[in-house]
């Protein structure tokens, strides 16, 4: 029987076919459509055209997940003939595809900047609500605590179970396994074969190494911004994916050796985005501005408790005469505008006429030009002295600001996945470029009037080391 499908045009992958039942049960729902108004990244401050949302990203992750699973099944099915039936392969496929589609459904407005508000004083309740969906005597809660999902993963997993449970089952998929995939909660302890196999599917969506989520955002963020990042041959990569048993009878994600260059490119492309874009001095300044504005609104009210609540996905929450349902970025901006006369930072945010400008803009400048001969310890001490007002007397207390910049650079970890060479499985962590050692640093911002005194400020800063 042929499956009716709808077709979505995507600028990265071309046409994406999605079963009509998925459209009806998942995409055409208010929770999923909400993702059209959650911006994917905070990079738009740098690139005027970088306007893309978590809706398009979710469709992209579905496409890559569907492609990855079809090759995985093709390349691995014969290896597990006795262990996994055709019906089980079909259920794994449906579960993986649905998890890919829904993996970001609980993302907060402004994504990672505010996601922690959803869990504020509600962790025990969310843990309890999640545990209701797992059999009484499973190890789920222990595993959930061990794998400690990020806030948006917890909310997405819970929403999936509470709002879509019946729909997932009617699509011949497992709601519990889909929630585990979204939250990255693997089985722990002494495992049977199925649990070992399912753990690999979990890491294929939510893993530390190569997963379809990061494979999409690396390509999408690079494309939409127009930034000249690496070209990732995802088709070559995914066509060689398989799951195999290693010498210890553990399941491992394995790629053929022909994709070594693609794996290296993924590592380079990801670190490029974190180093040059997500940690750009303007991006982190604007995030701090937004955080400070929201915290000021929140300090005298229960704004965050009401609006950043999982219940706001299904019921309106009232705050000062306004009703919030399925809150998005627009709702937060609307709220901020109500306070424009109470906080000058709001005008600064809306106009993007920033009060402070960075004294240096990159790690390279910081490290090679100014702090080359300063040890890590002394860099930290200098930062502490600035935070404690060491420059205030000379340059004014409201003229200098310092922010830690923390690019999330990473390499592929040992045992994440393997490369098959002459029937042997070789750890892929050896195959990728190693990011520069610790790139943690801080950026000092000064007001316009202090810009001409850059040299004096830096000289004074360097004199603060003991």
């Amino acid at each position: 029987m042929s499956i009716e499908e709808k077709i979505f045009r995507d600028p990265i992958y071309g046409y994406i076919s999605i079963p009509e039942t998925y459209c009806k049960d998942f995409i055409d729902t208010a929770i999923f459509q909400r993702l059209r108004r959650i911006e994917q990244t905070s990079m738009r401050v740098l690139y005027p055209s970088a306007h893309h949302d978590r809706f398009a990203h979710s469709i992209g992750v579905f496409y890559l997940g569907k492609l990855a699973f079809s090759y995985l099944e093709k390349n691995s099915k014969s290896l597990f003939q006795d262990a996994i039936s055709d019906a089980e392969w079909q259920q794994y496929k449906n579960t993986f595809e649905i998890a890919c589609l829904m993996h970001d459904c609980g993302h907060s407005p402004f994504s990672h900047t505010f996601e922690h508000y959803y869990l504020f004083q509600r962790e025990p309740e969310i843990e309890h609500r999640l545990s209701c969906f797992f059999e009484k005597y499973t190890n789920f809660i222990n595993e959930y605590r061990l794998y400690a999902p990020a806030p948006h993963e917890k909310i997405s997993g819970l929403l999936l179970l509470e709002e879509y449970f019946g729909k997932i089952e009617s699509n011949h998929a497992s709601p519990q396994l889909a929630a585990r995939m979204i939250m990255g909660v693997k089985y722990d302890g002494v495992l049977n074969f199925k649990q070992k196999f399912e753990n690999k599917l979990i890491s294929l969506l939510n893993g530390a190494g190569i997963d379809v989520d990061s494979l999409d955002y690396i390509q999408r963020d690079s494309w939409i911004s127009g930034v000249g990042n690496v070209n990732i041959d995802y088709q070559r990569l995914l066509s060689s994916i398989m799951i195999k048993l290693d010498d210890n009878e553990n399941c491992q994600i394995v790629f053929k050796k022909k994709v070594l260059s693609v794996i290296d490119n993924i590592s380079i492309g990801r670190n490029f985005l974190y180093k040059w874009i997500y940690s750009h001095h303007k991006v982190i300044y604007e995030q701090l501005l937004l955080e400070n504005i929201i915290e000021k609104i929140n300090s005298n009210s229960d704004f965050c408790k009401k609006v950043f609540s999982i219940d706001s996905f299904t019921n309106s929450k009232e705050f000062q005469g306004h009703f919030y349902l399925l809150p998005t970025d627009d709702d937060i901006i609307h709220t901020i505008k109500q306070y424009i006369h109470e906080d000058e930072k709001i005008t600064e945010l809306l106009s993007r006429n920033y009060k402070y400008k960075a004294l240096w803009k990159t790690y390279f400048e910081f490290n090679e030009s100014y702090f080359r001969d300063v040890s890590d310890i002394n860099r930290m001490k200098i930062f502490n002295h600035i935070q404690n007002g060491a420059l205030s007397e000379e340059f004014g207390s409201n003229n200098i600001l310092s922010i830690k910049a923390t690019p999330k650079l990473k390499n592929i970890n040992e045992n994440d996945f393997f490369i098959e060479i002459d029937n042997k499985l070789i750890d892929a962590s050896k195959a990728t470029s190693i990011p520069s050692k610790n790139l943690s640093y801080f950026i000092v911002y000064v007001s316009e009037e202090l810009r001409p005194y850059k040299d004096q400020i830096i000289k004074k800063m360097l004199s603060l080391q003991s």
Partner: protein
Amino acid sequence: MCYKIDSSFTLIHYLKNKNSCTIRDIVELKNRIENELKSVYVDVSKDSILQTISQYPEIFYWEENQIKKQKSAEKYFNNNVIDFFKSEQNSKIEDELIKFF
């Protein structure tokens, strides 16, 4: 008010007088803190912990599901340095937080 405590702050203070800990230890600490300090959110998600470890390789490393302190890292636990890990926000409630470590 919601004071977000980053995992770098939690890890550096937790490991001040210990050589290693598990994510479970940190999650239990989080629960104790949040239970007593109603305006605090402690971020101990695995992502943020792994980020802290990869960001400060001179101080932490990950081995056998444990977060361990590097042998040569004692100098980072000095009072003059450890303040690097507090944020502008959590410095306001530092005294209340420190008693949990």
